[in-house]
């Protein structure tokens, strides 16, 4: 089964997905600064290269050049493990996202997905919950009260919101009947996007995605203004860079997951009727998917520069007292509707 051609194709796909996630994460930092600036009536970074396009490179060089500090009171092994785990987990989530249908080259069919495991959704959940360890370990190993506070907040926040997220996904799984990303994406042809069948589930999932990626209004783990950076207070140089970078990769991947689960993935209405060749349609699908992803990345930034941070008790209230009952109600509602319309 495993031939050389298959291996080469998979390796190329892995490298391309990896590179694209890093590249998009890199330019998300630039986009974030530009979006922030535009929303505050400023023009943002414009000195490095034309329109400041080389700014991420300059930032990267700066990060590498910074002095590498490991506090003497910290646990050195865990201190290095923290950012590594954070970076690693955010990089491997992209493996199950279907980036397009498939390319047909020389009679072979090459699906544009690194791996189509039948429990893709569970895989994403498993990996993102390991991501909590990156933050928790980093905050703990720093041996600093602010870092520990940030880490505690991060872990309690992520654990609370994972429940609501999982429950909102259960309703989606009831509707689609599968845990495989590929099948969920393939199902949403035309206008049959899951958002239409699961609007409440989408809202809950979106809010939880914000909490999972530690973005404003749920950026309590970082809290620049009160916890001076939270779990990464003691970090410097590229270890800090990894933490910051992991956040942007997470943002990219969660945008991809949201687009795939609720917004039709690589599908676009009416495009199937044009009678285009299979390969051309696949490439168009990739373009559509990335359009949706870019919209959601922008949406993440848009919300960040609109809303203030939640207070800790408000965050917990929202998670446990509102989102979890709401998602349970959503599961019940989905079940009732499916029973009424005889779709079971």
């Amino acid at each position, binding site marked *: 089964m495993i031939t050389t051609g298959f291996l080469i194709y998979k390796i190329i796909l892995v490298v391309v997905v990896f590179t694209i996630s890093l590249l998009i994460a890199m330019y998300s930092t630039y986009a974030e600064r530009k979006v922030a600036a535009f929303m505050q009536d400023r023009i943002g970074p414009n000195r490095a290269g034309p329109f400041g396009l080389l700014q991420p490179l300059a930032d990267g060089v700066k990060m590498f050049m910074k002095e590498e500090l490991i506090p003497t009171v910290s646990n050195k092994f865990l201190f290095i493990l923290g950012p590594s785990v954070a970076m690693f987990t955010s990089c491997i989530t992209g493996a199950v996202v279907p980036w397009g249908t498939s390319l047909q080259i020389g009679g072979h069919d090459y699906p544009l997905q690194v791996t189509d495991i039948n429990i893709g959704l569970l895989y994403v959940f498993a990996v993102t919950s390991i991501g909590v360890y990156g933050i928790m370990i980093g905050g703990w190993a720093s041996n600093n009260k602010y870092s520990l506070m940030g880490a505690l907040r991060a872990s309690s926040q992520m654990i609370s919101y994972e429940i609501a997220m999982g429950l909102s996904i259960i309703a989606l799984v009831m509707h689609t009947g599968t845990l495989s990303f590929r099948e969920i994406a393939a199902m949403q042809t035309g206008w049959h996007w899951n958002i239409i069948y699961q609007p409440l589930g989408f809202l809950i999932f979106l809010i939880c995605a914000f909490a999972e990626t530690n973005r404003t209004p749920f950026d309590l783990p970082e809290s620049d203004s009160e916890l001076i950076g939270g779990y990464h207070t003691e970090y410097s140089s590229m270890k800090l860079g990894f933490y910051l970078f992991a956040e942007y990769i997470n943002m990219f991947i969660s945008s991809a997951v949201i687009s795939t689960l609720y917004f039709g993935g690589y599908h676009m209405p009416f495009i199937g009727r044009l009678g285009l060749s299979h390969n051309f349609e696949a490439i168009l699908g990739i373009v559509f998917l990335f359009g949706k992803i870019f919209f959601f990345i922008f949406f993440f930034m848009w919300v960040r520069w609109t*809303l203030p941070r939640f207070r800790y008790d408000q965050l917990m209230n929202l998670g446990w007292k509102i989102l979890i009952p709401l998602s349970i109600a959503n599961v019940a509602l989905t079940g009732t509707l499916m029973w009424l319309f005889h779709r079971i």
Partner: protein
Amino acid sequence: MQALTTRAKVAVNKKMSFKERIYLPAIIGGMALTIKHFFMKKVTVSYPEVQRPFAPVYRGHHVLKRDENGAERCTACGLCAVACPAEAITMVASERKKGEENLYREEKYASVYEINMLRCIFCGLCEEACPKEAIFLTDKTVSSDYRRDGFVYGKDKLVEPMDKNKRIDVSKRQTPEVAEFKKHPEYAHNKLNNKSLNA
């Protein structure tokens, strides 16, 4: 009592209504506001390329004027140093030697004239105090430096060039009121018209 602002709101510790408690309408309103600003005209001025115009009476870098023959007007009377609230000005007076008539306007002149730009608050009182129309503030800004001693400006940086084409124009600072006031006989020795000042 009159309110200090028209946007003041009375804070009430009331329970939030359902609409307020689900947050979403407020969030959508806020996001509409930010996206509106996203497309608004930006207020940033890209400084080194674009410079905002200075007011003609802007108080910046000082200049020590020369008269129409190129002789320094300053006579080291010290009134500017006395007037200076920040005590930024120091000077050393010297007597003019024979043959230096083309360099210094009167028998006494300042051989050392220093302004500490870190102390200076650019109030313009030196300009007001000067009986000889010798010191003026200009619309040039004081440049930055890495060391404190670089901010003590001597005559090399303060006195305007001898070349008539490179003289610094301060005529815009001479409002009609000032010019009229200085026509008083007491100031006759200064030949108070803009022509002679900027010659």
